[in-house]
């Protein structure tokens, strides 16, 4: 951990590109750390105070965070001054340790939310079956669920139980879970099939980026290190791909819940209405931020899967193609222009050529048909026809087949 005073003399680059010089450490409270700052491009401007609310990755690191640089002119003997290579070496070392810690998942806000959603989802899906005595013995083997079940998940359940945070009707189910999960983990460990998200180096590397411990360049550097690469298995790539799909569905779900921009209550008084609009805007901004976070993480996840799956020692075309398909799907959520999506899908098409990839190829074809149907109807039709051939091959029922006409 860098002493708070050592941030004096550093320059922080904000999301909007503005650079701020931290001139003085003002103090620290339980929720925030305060510095006197001055914009770099306005040296004549008087100092203002900036409060950094915790948790902040840069406050927890022992190496200067990527968003900071040192003002070498004014602080030539700054204690954090070092060569970029040395900084990167130390950062890599620190981050490799951090991502190997058991409970790192609890530090990543998004992962904590996914964990809570998994618990809720599990209760909704299986709680009633359990109450009726109809719960399948191997329900924990559910492929959607299994990668999320680990010691952290168990800890979360035990914590909920110990603090009485579960309603009485679901308590027996959670008590059952608290005994079934450790048994399942032991079983999976013995059979070599225990590959939860939390022990996945790629998943944790993505977590470091999500919490802003590292930027994308640093992520790529760490991912390219032999000490990191030796942690990556095919299983790890598959789990990361699962995470990408979860992030996609989470973002898509949040978009559905996004409050409308024109929601305002005209029946209320002006003040109430202003307040309601302000809260609505706040809520919308908060959800938009979360959606963007999910999509950004998903995009990086796709890129990581693609990167590793394309390496000579992997040569996993299907995973690579899948990563590009989901890359395009994630982009679609942001309603950005079609070009990057088209490129991603076209490249996916060249990879999803094996027999066991035809379902995913089908989805790629439909995605492409939708993108090019106005600019190039003939190509769209060709994509559509191939998709329909696949549907016949897969014996898709008639009523479920694509009837889209370009």
């Amino acid at each position: 951990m860098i002493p708070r005073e050592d941030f004096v003399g550093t320059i922080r680059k904000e999301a909007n590109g503005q650079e701020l010089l931290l001139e003085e450490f003002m103090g620290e409270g339980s929720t925030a750390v305060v510095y006197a700052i001055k914009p770099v491009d306005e040296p004549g401007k008087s100092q203002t105070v900036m409060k950094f609310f915790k948790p902040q990755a840069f406050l927890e690191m022992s190496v200067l965070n990527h968003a900071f640089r040192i003002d070498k002119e004014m602080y030539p003997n700054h204690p954090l001054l070092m060569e970029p290579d040395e900084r990167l070496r130390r950062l890599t070392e620190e981050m490799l340790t951090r991502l190997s810690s058991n409970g790192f998942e609890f530090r990543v806000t998004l992962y904590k939310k996914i964990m809570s959603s998994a618990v809720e989802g599990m209760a909704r899906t299986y709680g009633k079956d359990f109450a009726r005595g109809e719960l399948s013995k191997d329900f924990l083997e559910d492929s959607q669920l299994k990668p999320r079940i680990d010691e952290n998940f168990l800890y979360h359940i035990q914590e909920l139980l110990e603090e009485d945070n579960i309603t009485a009707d679901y308590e027996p189910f959670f008590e059952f879970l608290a005994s079934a999960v450790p048994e399942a983990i032991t079983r999976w460990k013995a059979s070599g099939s225990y590959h939860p998200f939390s022990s996945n180096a790629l998943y944790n590397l993505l977590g470091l980026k999500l919490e802003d411990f590292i930027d994308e360049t640093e992520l790529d550097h760490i991912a390219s290190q032999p000490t990191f690469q030796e942690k990556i298995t095919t299983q790890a790539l598959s789990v990361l791909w699962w995470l990408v799909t979860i992030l996609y569905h989470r973002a898509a779900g949040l978009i559905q819940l996004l409050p409308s921009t024109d929601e305002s209550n005209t029946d209320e008084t002006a003040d109430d209405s202003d307040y309601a609009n302000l809260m609505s805007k706040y809520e919308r901004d908060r959800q938009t931020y979360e959606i963007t976070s999910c999509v950004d993480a998903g995009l990086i996840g796709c890129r990581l899967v693609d990167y590793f799956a394309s390496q000579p020692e992997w040569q996993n075309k299907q995973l690579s193609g899948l990563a590009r398909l989901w890359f395009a799907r994630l982009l679609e959520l942001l309603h950005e222009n079609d070009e990057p999506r088209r490129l991603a899908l076209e490249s996916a098409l060249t990879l999803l050529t094996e027999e066991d990839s035809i379902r995913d190829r089908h989805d790629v074809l439909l995605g492409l048909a939708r993108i090019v149907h106005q600019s190039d109807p003939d190509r769209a039709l060709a994509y559509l026809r191939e998709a329909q051939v696949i549907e016949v091959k897969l014996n898709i029922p008639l009523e479920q087949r694509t009837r889209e006409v370009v």
Partner: protein
Amino acid sequence: MPHRFEVFLSYNSADRTDVSSLASYLRDLGISVWFDQWMLIPGTAWQKALHEGISSSQTVAVCVGHSGVGPWENAEMMLALDRALKDSDYRVIPILLPSAPADNHIELPPFLNLYSWVDFRVGLNDPEATRRLIAGIKGNIPGPSQEPAASFSVNTTNSAPQQSLTASQNIDLDVLSRCLSVIGIPDDIQPELVSWLRTECDRYLDRSRIFDVSRSIPERLQRFGLPTPVIHDAESFLDEWVTSLTPPRLLSNAFYVSNEKITRTYRAYRSAIEAYFDAVGNPLESDAAEDKFLATYQYFAGTGNFVFLPARVLLGESLFWSADPVFYFVGAFMLDRKELFDAFPSVEVFLKEKSQRITLGLTNEVFGHSDPFHYPYVTMSGYLGQTSMRMRMSRKYVAVNSMTVDSLLTLIAGTPVIISGVGSIERSQDGGYLIQPTACRFSQSQSWLHPIERS
């Protein structure tokens, strides 16, 4: 005639002291009591008033002590029995007072034997007898025994009833008085001091004003003209006592509150706690951890099972009598820094190199660490009086904020701090004592660390 009173107390004048305590206790539980010492106006025709009292009460409790049934009690009882034969809703409840013979050879009018007894021979603070008596007064079925399986060390040295929902009633007056004597407060001013303390504690049970009692202590003590050393000792002593009597104060000042332990304790005693609160007509409604803590605390205090450990230290008594369930403790503790440094080697380096720059950040690094598996438990060692103790707490429940940071840093730096709080104490495997705190705070008190020699 409408029932103005829920219970009429019929007793032999030889048992007046016990019955007076019982009357006060029932009144504190919110039950309207007809007790002749409170109801009879000097100079009025008391026979008529007694008759009216019985007529206007829903139940009659016939109290029987070592002297059996008194002459007037006999008349009251006959009147009540007569009415009970005519009115099925009218209840007669025979009560065996603590002074009643221990064996079952109690000579009583035969008709009284027809009714179910409530037996207080163990003591007026017997929770099971209390529950049965209140059920009888209210006309409810008492149901099976709600007594928890664990054995309690009930303090029977004080004849005053302990069970109450007010703070002042929870003070063990006998112990308090003896403590004041040890500190050097003259006997003649003790009643006034105790009376003032009782009143203040009751007034400031209100959570919004929980700090006011301690603030007013020094001024009050100065008025008695006590020498400064005595004031100093009494101040810290009363301060801790006030904290123990006003649990919201403890929570508001706490640096550690274990939701897990609150839940576990509440679950273990749930049926007894709920019965206790139901019995006083104040059923628990909230499921919040804070309310559970307060209810549990109140239950143990109200049933005489809450031990104010500093008093035992001060009085030089044995710290542990038996399986006392809940303690209020004060002691000096140091952090086990080997465990800390094993978990956070960087902190050890930091302390060696930059001890002059310890900040809240360092405290956050240790106690605010997000990984629950990393350094999950904080161990401390220290002393209660002259008895060495260890204390173990879950790191996740340690609060890091501007109120606690200095003390937490002191602990990290290897210096002892005074910690007071509520918890259970158990024998650890190595034969020592282990405190499992529920809630604790950093204390200002010093004089509780060792018995005071002055007296």
